[in-house]
């Protein structure tokens, strides 16, 4: 190890050590506030898309560019959530508004992907290769992020467009997962009701 101390990083500020953090309008609140819960869930969603992106690049399935744009959208959604709409300046509101146009764009992407997929006849199990699996995982985290955002949107602390985008995003991730499985030529596993141990043993005994 080097004998001289490395320069102190600016990364850790220690201002959160007592359990509070700041919003974009400067207001400090407890870290348990539902705004931070929503922010954190969106952060987890963003990270999980980062993993899915890695595998989509590896598979070269063409989804990578859309996933990057989604990650940037999620960053903007974070800014919107972190700036309570009733308690911010005009400039802050303008800089952090989240446009509904992003939702329409997602819908266009879903339409294009869906058109290339065979119709769904059964429930599928999250499966279908690396890219598909991680897109399914991102989908489930997206739905959790939407759940945490709902009370924040209802209190009008975040724009309605945020809730709508997260809702549409889980549909996109589902379509993307199926598309990724098809691209990798991987079988999706179908749901089939499992026989309970008892039924199965009765069956074998009858044999």
């Amino acid at each position: 190890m080097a004998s001289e101390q490395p320069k102190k990083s600016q990364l850790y500020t220690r201002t959160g050590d007592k359990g509070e953090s700041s919003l974009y309008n400067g207001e400090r609140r407890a870290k348990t506030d539902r705004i931070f819960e929503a922010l954190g869930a969106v952060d987890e969603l963003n990270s999980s898309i980062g993993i899915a992106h890695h595998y989509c690049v590896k598979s070269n399935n063409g989804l990578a560019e859309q996933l990057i744009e989604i990650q940037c959208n999620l960053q903007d959604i974070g800014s919107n959530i972190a700036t309570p709409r009733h308690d911010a300046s005009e400039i802050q509101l303008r800089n952090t508004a989240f446009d509904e146009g992003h939702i329409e764009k997602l819908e266009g992407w879903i339409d294009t992907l869906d058109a290339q997929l065979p119709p769904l006849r059964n429930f599928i199990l999250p499966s279908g290769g690396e890219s598909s699996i991680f897109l399914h995982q991102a989908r489930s985290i997206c739905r959790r992020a939407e759940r945490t955002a709902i009370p924040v949107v209802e209190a009008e602390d975040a724009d309605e467009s945020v809730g709508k985008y997260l809702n549409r995003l889980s549909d996109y991730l589902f379509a993307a997962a199926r598309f990724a499985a098809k691209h990798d030529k991987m079988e999706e596993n179908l749901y089939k009701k499992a026989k309970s141990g008892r039924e199965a043993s009765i069956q074998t005994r009858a044999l």
Partner: protein
Amino acid sequence: MLLNPFRDTLRRAGTSAFSTGSAIRLAGRPKIYTKTGDKGTSSLFTGERRPKDDEVFEALGTNDELSSSVGLAREYCLDQGSDVQGMVEQLEQIQCLLQDIGSNIATPRDSATAPRLARTEFDSDGQHVQDLENWIDTMDQELPPLTSFILPSGGKAAAALHVARSISRRTERRVVPLAQEQRVDKSVAIYLNRLSDYLFTCGRYAAMKAGRQEVLYKKPRAPRVKKNSPSVEE
């Protein structure tokens, strides 16, 4: 967090009125399933039973998820090679500390006996937080300065470290109210706060060592009418 797997089996062997008639062999084969949680309660380290949706179990479970995610990130770092070998060792140490954090959470500071409190104290001298800060400072020296937001990216290890980072922050959120009510040591909340900074730095460092460009945030434009770009077709 793994409680002694023998403990419940031993208890049931001694008092159970519902033995199957065959001897319960304990040597080398503890039962993983005890069924004692089937009615929705579980025990703390003090022996106190509480419903599984108690805040303490929420914090314990989230800490467990964190440890799992750190373990996964460590595996990817192992795959990445010698450049991040130091990080691999640090992550393993952190997993052990998370186990200790679990013990601290599972032993409510406001109701446990003095010997139990002494056994499960966490980072009373702040050394573990200091270690995290030293590790951050060392890695930060090699990293280019941050001039814009980055997206969680930069290869498998970096992406997995970002996931762990986000789970670390969720763990902190679960612990903070318990620390404020003095049911968990404040040092645990401080450690978790610093840990997410450490994991962020690791994410950047792993990306740099993998030679992978981190993707920078760029505000997407929102055209209201155009629906078609960038589209994906086979």
